[in-house]
């Protein structure tokens, strides 16, 4: 039997409702677009990185930023692939031209 409470217990087992993740289709403004943008930017810079060294480095940074801002539900495979792409862009640009990067100033 339930122990006597001064204040009646407000809990109701029969009123339990399961959690439904709020759908992002109805509220597109709530979703943070940062990881997707950074992912895309990372890929673009990786492509350009084959020609310019600093592009490849920026691509690495973009993939890191995308990873840091990503949601838990997001596919890790995509994160890893964009990360690998940026690293390979850096490596290939140095293999092609081992000269150190010159600062723009």
């Amino acid at each position, binding site marked *: 039997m339930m122990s006597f409470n001064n204040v009646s217990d407000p809990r109701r087992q029969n009123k*339990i409702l399961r959690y439904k*993740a709020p759908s992002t289709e109805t509220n597109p403004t709530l979703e943070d677009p940062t990881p997707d943008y950074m992912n895309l930017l990372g890929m673009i810079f990786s492509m350009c990185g084959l020609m310019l060294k600093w592009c490849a480095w920026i691509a690495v940074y973009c993939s890191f930023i995308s990873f840091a801002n990503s949601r838990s539900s997001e596919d890790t495979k995509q994160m890893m692939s964009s990360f690998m792409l940026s690293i390979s862009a850096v490596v290939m640009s140095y293999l092609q031209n081992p000269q150190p990067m010159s600062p723009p100033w």
Partner: protein
Amino acid sequence: MRSVHLLVPALLLLLAFPVSRGRYNDDFDDGEDIADFDDNDFAEFEDMNDDQAAEAETAPPPRASPSSQPEEEEEDEDEATVELEDGLDGFEDSEAQDQDMYSKYDQEEFEGIGDMEKGHSMKDPLIIHTVPAHLQNSWESYYMEILMVTGLLAYIMNYLIGKNKNSRLAQAWFNSHKELLESNFALVGDDGTSKEAVSTGKLNQENEHIYNLWCSGRVCCEGMLIQLKFLKRQDLLNVLARMMRPIGDQVQIKVTLNEDDMDTFVFAVGTKKVMAKLQKEMQDLSEFCGDKPKSGAKFGLPDSLSILSEMGEVTDGVMDNKMVHYITNNAEKIESIHFSDQFSGPKVMQEEGQPLKLPETKRTLLFTFNVPGMGNTSPKDMESLLPLMNMVIYSIDKVKKLRLNREGKMKADRNRARVEENFLKQTHAQRQEAAQTRREEKKRAEKERIMSEEDPERQRRLEEAAQRREQKKIEKKQMKMKQIKVKAM
């Protein structure tokens, strides 16, 4: 500049020195002393030495060669008269002297002097190339790369530290609120994936900076979703941006209610800035609370807060003594409190050409609290939010009990009807267009069906049926028009 030009010949002299040294060594190996040489042997070098006194200090004195060695003398003169790069004329004086010296010499004794002079101009200046940076054995030339890698390491370090801090703050919040929640809700913590409704007893991590908690199983409400919206401490860019514009962590609580749990009213209280913003952005506040936000001071609240309400009765009903007490004590932590039976979120941008349905509404209590510390939050600060959770629980019970009187209820109903009518009017044209297109589509589809029928008999029959249907429709319309006319009369 002149000294640089004089350095070049000095360098060349130095280079030539080891070459010629051997020969002079041979000379001295004989045991001859420098002093044995006649001063006259040095005569021809005297003028040059005067000119290049500073630079030619290192030039070896044993350059003096006996005149019996004309070739060496010629070479001496080679060394002495170095061809300069084009445009440089540092040796005007010495060249003049050299020319004088040449003219002194007996052409017969010295062969090929004229050629020598010409030969000089054909010799290319020595250009010493610098070793390419990547072939040098020094890491210094790669300083940009080292900078980049250092930046990445700093980013990773910040990610780990930030993620850890957010996690600790979330845990601190949960630990301090767990007891209160478990005493009020049958289900504390649910991710929606498990088969049975069992309390997980922990937060859902959506992100490295957003944590959720779903509580359900209580009288007076369907459920409560708590979102801990921390700062993006794991992202270095965000950390740097926050140095310019400091913002704080937030806790957002959304309580969803049944029809029985709440009467029909719209109410909001919060900081002036936020109220102004919400009035513009929120669908229900813009439609039902048209008046400018009123200062909270009128209702016993601090002046920094303002109120948006559908009608005065609602404000009086919500702002009872206990509520005023809660709000006044925690005014700095409250960003906004929003009670609404017509809650549908922020205004949605309408797409052109699409008839908009009236947005779905839900009875909701929405609380947004600011965590003290403005970014520099410690786990202890999370405990200070506990009184606010007490306020939330109190609000849930209060809203259940709050009922509008007859007048208020009528006013509320009229407001809702008005809003719906306005909406329908706005979308009337769009809906008509949509209906028209639908009708045309139907007709077209029918015609296609008829045309695709191969059997001519069936075709004819279908055509006739379609015509009859059209006729009926027209008749119906005519009847309606007649009825309207009669009614009007």
